């Protein structure tokens, strides 16, 4: 319990610090939002009036407090470009990125972990060498290249999947799944490769441990030794990597969302930066920060469930 409270306290502290940094860094950026909205030729009176409306005439600290109060009321401000509440825009975009992210994480786990076990078990055999080379390629080759190849093979030549675009889940479940499958796979490929290599190493490290010999001396089969003893120990460090991957994926993939023309957060981020839509950019940076901190928090709690040595420290 103390452990959870402690983690919760650090969680809140980090959030506060992050919000302060984000807010004040955006204050330092050149360019007056009122100027951007009204254009260069706007009159001074107009600008002053708009600044008053936007609250830009107040002190920075006062505006920070306003901003944070707004956050708690789900008021992220208004987008300069779209003239819409930022929250409305995000609510539109988040389902796309989340669907993409969750699907690719599932693919990463379903494909990465069994292959990691396989490559560790077949150490020294040709299949392990082949897999090893493939993971090397998976990490080295940029994801947009995989995107193009998959679009070409499965989209254009075989016509199994659509080549671009997003279908909402509520409209057509299988259509959505088909539309998201290729981009999720592309995002997953490098993550799968990383997980395979990482898990292989942790499994081989664990396999040399004394407790594995104890398990073998009990007469357990290699299968039981792997799944009952080695794997749980080997997965502990992998969870950290997986947590980072999840945060990264849910933050939106700028490249893949562009390759597959998906209206997700990655796409939005690029758009809003190029149109200097500060409220939108600021909210998205905050969203990504919150995401990373939250997932780290969950990973910490997961550790506690899996590893009794951490449970004891609580």
């Amino acid at each position: 319990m103390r452990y959870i409270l402690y983690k919760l306290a650090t969680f809140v502290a980090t959030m506060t610090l992050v919000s302060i940094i984000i807010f004040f860094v955006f204050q330092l950026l050149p360019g007056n939002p009122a100027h951007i909205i009204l254009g260069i030729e706007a009159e001074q009176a107009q600008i002053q009036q708009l600044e008053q409306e936007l609250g830009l005439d107040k002190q920075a600290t006062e505006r920070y407090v306003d901003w944070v109060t707004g956050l708690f009321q789900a008021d992220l401000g208004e987008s300069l470009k779209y003239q819409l509440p930022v929250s409305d825009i995000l609510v539109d975009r988040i389902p796309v990125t989340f669907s993409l992210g969750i699907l690719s994480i599932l693919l990463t786990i379903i494909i990465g972990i069994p292959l990691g076990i396989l490559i560790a078990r077949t150490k020294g055999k040709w299949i392990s060498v082949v897999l090893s080379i493939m993971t090397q390629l998976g990490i080295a080759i940029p994801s947009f290249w995989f995107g193009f190849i998959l679009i070409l093979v499965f989209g254009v030549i075989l016509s199994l999947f659509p080549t671009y675009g997003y279908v909402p889940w509520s409209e057509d479940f299988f259509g959505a799944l088909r539309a998201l499958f290729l981009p999720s796979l592309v995002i997953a490929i490098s993550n799968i490769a990383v997980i395979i290599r990482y898990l292989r190493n942790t499994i081989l490290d664990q396999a040399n441990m004394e407790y594995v010999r104890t398990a073998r001396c009990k007469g357990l089969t290699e299968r039981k030794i792997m799944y009952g003893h080695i794997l749980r120990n080997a997965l502990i460090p992998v969870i950290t990597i997986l947590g980072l991957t999840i945060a990264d994926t849910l933050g939106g993939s700028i490249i893949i969302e562009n390759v597959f023309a998906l209206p997700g957060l990655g796409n939005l981020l690029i758009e809003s930066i190029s149109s200097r839509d500060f409220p939108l950019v600021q909210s998205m940076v905050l969203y990504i920060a919150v995401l990373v901190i939250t997932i780290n928090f969950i990973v910490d709690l997961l550790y506690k469930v899996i590893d009794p040595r951490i449970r004891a420290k609580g």
Partner: protein
Amino acid sequence: MSTPLLSIENLDVAFHFQDGDYNAINHVSFNVYPNEVLGIVGESGCGKSLTSKAIMGILPENASVKQGSITFRETNLVTMKEKQWQKIRGDAISMISQEPMTSLNPLLTVGKQIAEVLKQHRSYSKKEMKEKTIALMKEVGLPRAEALYKSYPHQLSGGMRQRIVIAIALIASPQLIIADEPTTALDVTIQAQILDLFKNIKNTRNSSLIFISHDLGVIRQVCDRVVVMYAGRVVEQGKVADILYEPKHPYTKGLIQSIPDHTKRGQELYTIPGNVPGLKERKRGCPFADRCAHRMDICHTHFPDEVYVENQAVSCHLYTKEEVKHVSTIH
């Protein structure tokens, strides 16, 4: 004597390196009889641990049995398949390792880790398994066994963990238990307690025990017979009392001389000059020859046959028939 439970004959175990095979165990032969405690003593690198791994069928990947046999209950273990090994391990032969701190899985409760052996080899109900585990935990001297059943290894002290490891080895009542330096990693006071536990096991259980140690003092306390190994060879074997009080092989003599005790107070402690030859430095002949004060020409060319001198078996040219008469002339 009765028929041996375990009989090792002419065992060679080699490590495979890029530049060839090197025998780490050479023509090792000894027997373990029912209900006896056999000690194996020797310096590190003499092959005592490797011998025990060969018996368990858990040799490292780059080592294998080159020749010879390990006969257990009339079956040659050397030719067995992995599946057959798995039936024997933990059930008929078990092993206690020297690292109590790392030989338990940190993520599983100790009770589960003991009961796992029964789960593998017996068809007890969950309740029976737990009862038997708790009863054994009490037997090996763990207080509050019911509460400890659910604890994790990191919550226990080194001595308690070693008792858990011993319980894992005992739970299926195996006929042969191999204890590889079971007290080496422990504090002296805990060492004494664990040795007492082994004496208890010896008296109350119908198991044979192979007790591996580099410490003759420890061997003296628990063993009936002892095998002295040097650089992969058995150099002398016999009853503990005979070996300790009437050692025949120059190496055994040196080993005993180098045990500190109160009669040697104030004197410099004897050490055998030189070092154990490395695996790749071993030549034909007796591996101890270079360190031996009694070496003869033949020692460098031929390893002596095992001969009986009084009550023990010795492999030394000092005692082979032709040479026996010269013993008195050698300094």
